[in-house]
């Protein structure tokens, strides 16, 4: 069973190698290989999904493989999945075949290289979520930049070179300090890069922990991206080809939040408690700022990109609340954002393929011409703004309630301002839908626009199903995350207890405030949240 994860990681690479040996003049072959390989990878990863044991007694990391890699340096090939990594891995393997399908007609130039880059990217993404060795993680984390750099730079639109260089330099420069921090951790943890061993034996003082946390946090914050480190994102998203935008939004940004969840927070809990206030405030600023920026965009891709800044702000806020609800909501919102923003970028890509413009004013009144596309767009939009019954609602609700009840400084104002962000989000997204699909059909070019093809329906149908299923039946997706969330909360409770032992006047800072505000909950909590009440 443990070799399954290794196969899932490296199967896309095998597909890329196979493609490399086939002639470039046969684009059909390369498309077929990429689709087949990514589909097989998805079906194999279903084995991980069904084989995962989410009971509290089960091992924290499952499907573990641990073999020496560079033994003389203490680096091992150690992989394994907890529930959160599993969910993100499933998101990756499920989206990749859809992305390959979406490029069927859109990419005509250098198809071979495109598919190779896409498959290598998939491998690196899966590897990043699966790694349990700090250096192995870093290798996947950095190696991922190369295919993404090429995807944006080679197949992007007009301003692609500026965008891709900015993307690379931002993320690379932010990550190198993490490498120094990783090596420092190696020495402080008794000479190992193994994540599990490091987490157990890391022993550093408060100041060092604070610096280490910051080195990790900056690397992750750029990827998330958190305000004010987000400026690479609108450019990269706008210039990237559809496939690049989808994977960038759906998976790459999650690597930042996943990094907080897996590395920065559990390795340095005291420092995380120290810095959570700053991060939470930045997250809330990001929510509002991203929403306000979305209002003024004339380019629909840029609009969706800024909405990502806003949505990822929610995720970070949920993580920083350090309550079971907040963390669960943060994890769930990672998936939601992956599904709904991924779907939005796919839809925007479909419109772009038809008209070759991203300007919102070039559209209008499309609903009559392309009813299926319009319907899909509306459903995805509703999910993105968190309408009850869609997946977005569950995540946002958990985050906001988790923050409100959290023992973070200024919890209620933070939650309140974030809630304004929800409203703003609804306004700009519905405004976008209105501009694109309703009102009079003014542009002649749009009168002949074809509706969704069967291929496009095949791409969108699984995502629509996911949006509804995750909205109405969130439990199967919350269950795997629960043990990981509980363990993280447990780690923070221990850290908090240590801090309080050292400073008896310190108030508890982890967990939920009880019971004064709990009274409000039956009023505020609609059905989906009740299914979650068991988590704490």
């Amino acid at each position, binding site marked *: 069973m443990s070799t399954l994860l290794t196969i899932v990681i490296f199967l896309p690479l095998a597909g890329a190698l196979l493609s490399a040996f086939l002639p470039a003049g046969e684009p059909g072959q390369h498309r077929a290989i990429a689709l087949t390989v990514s589909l097989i990878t998805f079906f194999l990863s279903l084995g991980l999904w069904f084989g995962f044991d989410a009971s509290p007694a089960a091992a924290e990391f499952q499907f573990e493989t641990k073999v*020496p890699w560079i033994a*003389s340096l203490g680096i091992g090939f150690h992989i394994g999945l907890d529930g959160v990594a599993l969910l993100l891995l499933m998101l990756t393997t499920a989206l990749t075949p859809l992305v390959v399908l979406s490029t069927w007609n859109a990419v005509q130039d250098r198809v071979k290289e495109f598919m190779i880059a896409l498959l290598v990217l998939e491998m690196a993404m899966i590897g990043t979520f699966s790694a349990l060795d700090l250096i192995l993680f870093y*290798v996947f984390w950095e190696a991922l930049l190369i295919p993404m750099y090429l995807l944006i730079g080679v197949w992007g639109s007009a301003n692609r070179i500026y965008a891709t260089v900015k993307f690379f*330099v931002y993320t690379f420069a932010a990550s190198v300090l993490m490498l120094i921090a990783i090596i420092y951790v190696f020495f402080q943890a008794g000479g190992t890069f193994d994540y599990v061993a490091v987490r157990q034996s890391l022993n550093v003082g408060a100041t060092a922990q604070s610096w280490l946390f910051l080195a990790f946090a900056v690397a992750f914050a750029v990827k998330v991206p958190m305000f004010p480190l987000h400026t690479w994102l609108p450019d990269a998203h706008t210039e990237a080809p559809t496939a690049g935008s989808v994977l960038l939004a759906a998976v790459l940004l999650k690597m930042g939040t996943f990094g907080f969840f897996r590395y920065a927070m559990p390795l340095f809990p005291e420092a995380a408690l120290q810095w959570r206030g700053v991060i939470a405030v930045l997250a809330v600023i990001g929510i509002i700022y991203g929403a306000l920026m979305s209002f003024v965009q004339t380019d629909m891709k840029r609009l969706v990109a800024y909405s990502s800044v806003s949505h990822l702000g929610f995720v970070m806020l949920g993580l920083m609340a350090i309550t079971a609800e907040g963390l669960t909501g943060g994890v769930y919102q990672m998936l939601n954002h992956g599904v709904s923003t991924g779907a939005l970028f796919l839809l925007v890509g479909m419109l772009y393929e038809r008209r070759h413009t991203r300007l919102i004013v070039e559209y209008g009144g499309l609903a009559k011409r392309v009813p299926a596309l319009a319907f899909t767009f509306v459903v995805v939009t509703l999910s993105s703004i968190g309408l009850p019954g869609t997946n977005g609602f569950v995540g946002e609700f958990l985050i906001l309630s988790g923050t409100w009840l959290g023992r973070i400084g200024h919890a209620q104002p933070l939650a309140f301002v974030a809630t304004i962000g929800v409203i703003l989000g609804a306004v700009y997204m519905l405004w976008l839908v209105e501009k694109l699909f309703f009102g009079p059909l003014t542009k002649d070019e749009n009168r002949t626009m074809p509706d969704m093809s069967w291929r496009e329906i095949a791409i969108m149908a699984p995502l629509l199903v996911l949006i509804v299923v995750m909205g109405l039946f969130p439990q199967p997706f919350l269950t795997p995350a629960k043990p990981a969330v509980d363990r993280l909360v447990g780690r923070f409770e221990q850290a908090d207890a240590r801090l309080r032992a050292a400073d008896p006047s310190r108030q508890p800072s982890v967990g939920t405030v009880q019971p004064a505000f709990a009274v409000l909950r039956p009023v505020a909590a609609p059905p989906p949240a009740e299914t979650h009440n068991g988590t704490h």
Partner: protein
Amino acid sequence: MNGISANDVLALLPIIVLTIGAIAVLMSEVFLVSGKRGYQAGLAVASAVLAAIAAIAVKAQGPVFGGQATVDAFSIFITVTVCLGAGVSSLVSAGWLEARNAERGEFHALVLFASAGMVLLGMASDYLVAFIGIEVMSLATYALSAYMRRGRRPAEAAFKYFILGSFSSALFIYGAALAYGATGTTLFSGASRGGGLLLVAGLGLIAAGLAFKVAAVPFHVWTPDVYEGAPTPTTAFMAAGVKTAAFAVLARVLVAAFANQSMPGHGAFGGALASLAILTMVFGNLLALTQRSVKRMLAYSSIAHAGYLLMGIWAAGVTESRELALTGVLFYLAAYTATVIGAFAVVGTTERRGAPDEEPGDAWDLARFAGLSRRRPGLAFAMAVFLLSLAGIPPTAGFVAKLLIFKAALGAHAYGLAIIGIVTSALGAYYYLRVIVYMYMRPTEGAEDVIASPALSLGLALAAIAVVVLGIGPEPIASLARVASTSF
């Protein structure tokens, strides 16, 4: 000290093989009737590979020639790195020289002679032997940089190299004289016995002489001009081989010097070395940033890489991180050899060939790389691999090398040094990636054909495979380096 023993001769075997190879190439040139010179590169490659095999096969461990040279795992590692580097660069030169109708036996003979000097440097544990090694290596490389007597540039480069190189040799030998005066011996290990200002001054001069050779800032001014003016395969060979050999000597001298904790100025010496490393990393990277000529950019980048290696050498001076640091330096040298030879080889294949007397100033302009991925996908991919390795991005050899060096620096508690190093290396990503931008993301601009030669392709493929293998499976080489680092 009574005569030469069999052990001494065995220890010299790699050098003997290289020298015989060089003489054979030279002699065959005299009796050549056909004018076909393809075999010469083959002979050079064969000699280099044989020398590497000889170094591994001969089990003559320990001090030889009365302790003036040492054969140990360290010297074997250096020998093999240098010889394989020479072999690959001979493959590259074969195609390059053929395309320019410039094949001559002297070229390959000089490469082999220079390699013999480098191998000797790897074994030297005495100032005089080191000096002989430096001179054998340098005289050959001076001549190699003037090999293409076309236009002003090569002559200027060679002359500059010769003058400054002689100056640095003079510094070295003067320093050796002072050290002899202070300790009564020319052995490196003498530094642990003596003391006093005289020894510090001597070691300082020796270090300065070697700093010239490794192109450390502020002793680097010759590097860009020489690297740019020399024939490109020669540049590749120099960047790899000279650096490896000079760092080998530097490691041995400084480890011996740092072993003497009681030496006055011990701390200042370490401080000077650290400053040298910082200056080299910062200025090497900053100056590379502004270059449009890829060859010149790689020249500055080789300065920057000398900075990272100096950081490793500095860490080797701290007892608790010595093993880690030397492992890092050795691995870095092996990784850098494969990477830089490959990178310069690609530069050599794409450079613009003017008329014989013309000096194309834009021969290595970034524009030469525009659209390369469409014209020659394999070549562009290999170059991308080399550039990623130079930038230290996984999964390439350059990443593992940087990881080892930074690990050593942190092991020696040099946090500031490590942070400056990592930040400057992030800077490096920008100018390396710029070449990838041109190769993959810009359309071809009036391109001439690039050189196509089987030998060159083989050399490039070997270098690229080495870079990837060292990046993905570095364990065998890393553990060899580790063994080598414990040998002295």
